[in-house]
């Protein structure tokens, strides 16, 4: 077997970082910190480093919280761990993108796509007002603070959030999202 084919394919696609596996808080910290150092070393502007860092953290923490593919009831485990994918790369025009993929409960698909589609219709000023409104609203018991994370990502993006949800089986769907940062 050879990994070369994947290596070359990723390079052609502008991929800088690709991760597929169990994500925990410590993985979030390591990968986010790694990308920050790498971008700083390459002298990317501070603004673009911060936007990539922020989107990466939001996406990976969403995986930790919401991916339906997880180990449950492991008494030795500190914190949560769930399976997902994350990709950081550059578009042909040089803008950075951050993409993620993970399984979700099929029954959550409707609410998730509703949320993202609402954000897709908003301009910068509307996103700001919506962000502030959501931030002041009392938290609903079921939410661990999601909603606001998507608004945050939409505000860091240079174009509407792109997403996709495909059914895997009756109870599971696969969620993908791509954010092209400013």
């Amino acid at each position, binding site marked *: 077997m050879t990994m070369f084919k994947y290596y070359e394919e990723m390079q052609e696609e502008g991929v800088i970082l690709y991760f597929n596996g169990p994500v925990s*808080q410590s993985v*979030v*910290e390591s990968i986010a*910190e790694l990308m920050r150092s790498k971008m700083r070393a390459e002298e990317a502007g*501070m*603004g673009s480093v*911060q*936007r990539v*860092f*922020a989107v990466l*953290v*939001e996406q990976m*923490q969403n995986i*930790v919280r919401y991916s339906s593919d997880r180990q449950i009831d492991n008494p030795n485990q500190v*914190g*949560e761990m769930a399976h997902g994918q994350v990709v950081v790369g550059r578009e042909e025009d040089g803008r950075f993108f951050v993409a993620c993929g993970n399984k979700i409960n099929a029954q959550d698909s409707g609410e998730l796509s509703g949320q993202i589609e609402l954000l897709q219709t908003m301009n910068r000023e509307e996103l*700001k007002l919506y962000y*502030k409104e959501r*931030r*002041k609203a009392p*938290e609903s018991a079921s939410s*661990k*603070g999601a909603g*606001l*994370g998507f*608004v*945050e990502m939409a505000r860091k993006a240079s174009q509407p959030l792109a997403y996709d949800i495909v059914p895997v089986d009756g109870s599971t769907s696969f969620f993908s999202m791509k954010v092209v940062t400013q």
Partner: protein
Amino acid sequence: MTKYNVQATSSSPYIHFDPDRMSFEIKGESYPENCWAFYAPIFKWFDEFFGQINGDLVEIDMEIIYFNSSSSKTFMDFFEMLDDQAERGKNIIVNWRYHEENESAMECGEEFMEDVESIKFNLVEFTDQGVA
């Protein structure tokens, strides 16, 4: 009233509240796994603290390099709690400190400032040499 002291980690800030010296500081990164669990004790601490003081000036220094959306929500809750206390007569200042190159921290500070009412909210820019 005892001090409240927490060391920084890569995803959570250094917190130091010293009621004897009237010094209150939160400094570092903020994207812990469970944001509410991390910050809940400071709400409890301040609740007790405000019960014990009157008109003394409470000046809180916050210097956050990056914070995630859950922290943003929690900070807003924190400022609203401080706003409530200020409405009841407490004298409260928040100094939102950011490095001159950290544009994102500056913008976030401005947005918090727009959303608070009764506390004094200062934006404090500093450089590698100190406060500008």
